[in-house]
């Protein structure tokens, strides 16, 4: 097996060493939850406790940086719970995070809709309720159109759309809205957000010493999931315009996005795809939306939810109304996303 082009020490320590480094690098924003239950897998915003608000806890497996930890700071997420690479955190850290951010107004867990995450976060929520009477509600993000057909939308997984849903929830909580309102707004953002991606290489896992899956050099996989879950079609790498056309079709028809709609666009790198390529892709996204009479309200281009060193990108569209615009425009300040 080819040697990994990654920098790590003991491969079993990568997650803990990343968290240690991150907490120190971004100490003006976050600190470690030192409790036993947190198991070194919870980072808490330094803003927690400065005002009474609904607590926003995000989390999931690691290997998607800057998702999830990069969005903990002021008026976005209040804490993050991190598992092993591509693997949900365990229940105790989920519980610890709820305990760390609760100010008596309740807590929302927000994470991608994966079976393992649901089991662990649910067990963490039970613990928070049983031990400390903390009211915890959960919103699971389901933006990946390929992950299940529309008639089984409850089975869909969360990918880069996590960012949009978390941002909306974080703003709602920062504005002082109550638990039910924060959940309503997060679910609303969830219901109008759609994503799809393409991968051109596998990410690598240090403890495995290799790639997650095999891909011939020069191939791409349309619709691949953020953990390398197989997509809808494998073929030769095509032009940016053709790839974007193939991805935009299922996204647009799924909601559907229609003439007159206003959208937020997120063109996301899966890790190894450069900003140059992402902007070439966005150029085509804009052309398609112009043709359809759909207005682009705002665009984000960059690495927001990655798969470490995977080459590939995803496109996320969110259909906006006045309320969602207000949430997405609301100021926030975190190490990897600041809105002024």
């Amino acid at each position, binding site marked *: 097996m080819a040697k990994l082009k990654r920098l790590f020490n003991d491969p079993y320590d990568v997650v803990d060493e990343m968290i240690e480094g991150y907490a120190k690098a971004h100490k003006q924003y976050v600190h470690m939850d030192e409790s036993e239950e947190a198991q070194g897998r919870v980072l808490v915003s330094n803003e927690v406790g400065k005002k009474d608000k609904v607590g926003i806890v995000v989390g999931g497996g690691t290997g998607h940086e800057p998702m999830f930890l990069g969005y903990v700071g002021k008026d976005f997420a209040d804490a993050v719970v991190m598992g*092993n690479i591509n693997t949900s955190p365990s229940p105790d850290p989920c519980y610890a995070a709820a305990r760390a951010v609760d100010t008596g107004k309740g807590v929302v867990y927000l994470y991608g809709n994966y079976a393992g995450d649901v089991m662990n976060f649910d067990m963490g929520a039970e613990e928070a309720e049983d031990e400390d009477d903390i009211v915890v509600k959960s919103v699971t993000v389901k933006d990946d159109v390929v992950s299940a057909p529309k008639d089984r939308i409850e089975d869909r997984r969360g990918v880069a759309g996590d960012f949009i849903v978390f941002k909306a929830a974080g703003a709602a909580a920062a504005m002082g809205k109550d638990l039910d309102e924060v959940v309503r707004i997060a679910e609303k953002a969830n219901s109008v957000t759609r994503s799809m991606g393409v991968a051109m290489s596998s990410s690598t896992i240090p403890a495995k010493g290799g790639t997650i899956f095999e891909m011939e050099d020069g191939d791409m996989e349309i619709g691949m999931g953020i953990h390398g*879950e197989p997509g809808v079609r494998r073929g030769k790498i095509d032009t940016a315009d053709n790839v974007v056309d193939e991805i935009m079709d299922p996204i647009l028809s799924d909601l559907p996005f229609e003439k007159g709609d206003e959208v937020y666009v997120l063109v996301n790198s899966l890790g190894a795809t450069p900003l140059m390529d992402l902007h070439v892709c966005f150029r085509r996204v804009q052309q398609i939306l112009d043709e359809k009479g759909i207005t682009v309200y705002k665009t984000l281009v960059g690495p927001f939810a990655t798969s470490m060193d995977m080459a590939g990108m995803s496109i996320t569209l969110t259909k906006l109304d006045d309320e969602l615009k207000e949430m997405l425009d609301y100021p926030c300040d975190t190490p990897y996303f600041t809105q002024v």
Partner: protein
Amino acid sequence: MAEELSKAYFIQVIEDLIPWIEDRKEYFTDLDSAIGDGDHGINLSIGFREVASHLDEWKADNVAGLYKNVGKALLDKVGGSAGPLYGSFFMKFGVPVKKKGPDEGVTGDEFVEMMDKAISIIQKRGKSTTGEKTMNDTLMPALDALKAAHAAGDDIKTAMGKAVEAGKAGLESTRDMIATKGRAMRLGERAVGHLDPGAASTAEMLEIFYKDMPDA
């Protein structure tokens, strides 16, 4: 009823699971790469490394306490779906015999009850049943075979041998299934032709429970 399985047997099972997962982690990870996210074996090995580092302290506990500690370590360290599923299996396994003394073993009746408790919690946590291309496809037929053979009067090792065979047949049946649970679900028919990694790892785990049993 006489004790059929000693405390030493239950320690031996854990001691054998530790090298087993190190040996087999790449195989399970490869199975997972085909239809999931390619980490099943690695995450289990992270969990069992934690078990290995504490096992000596836990040996003084009774069977229930020992297995609860093993389960808690897996729950804490593995994460994903395998953490709650494997973790709950071990945490519940000892519950029927939690009142036993630290050196006591268990009877055949008790062992069947323990397996029932441990396998039932997996169905509950995973909100899943057979035919969905999950570890239930190994565990539920194994449990049914164990109960049937035990009820028919087989000694515990013979009964567990039948459970292992039923589990392997169940594992094999996952090859032709379309997944309706877990990450393989998004594949639809493309998952057909691949064994489910959770079904594969639990089939081998049951075999260790069988092989460590003393001959009747």
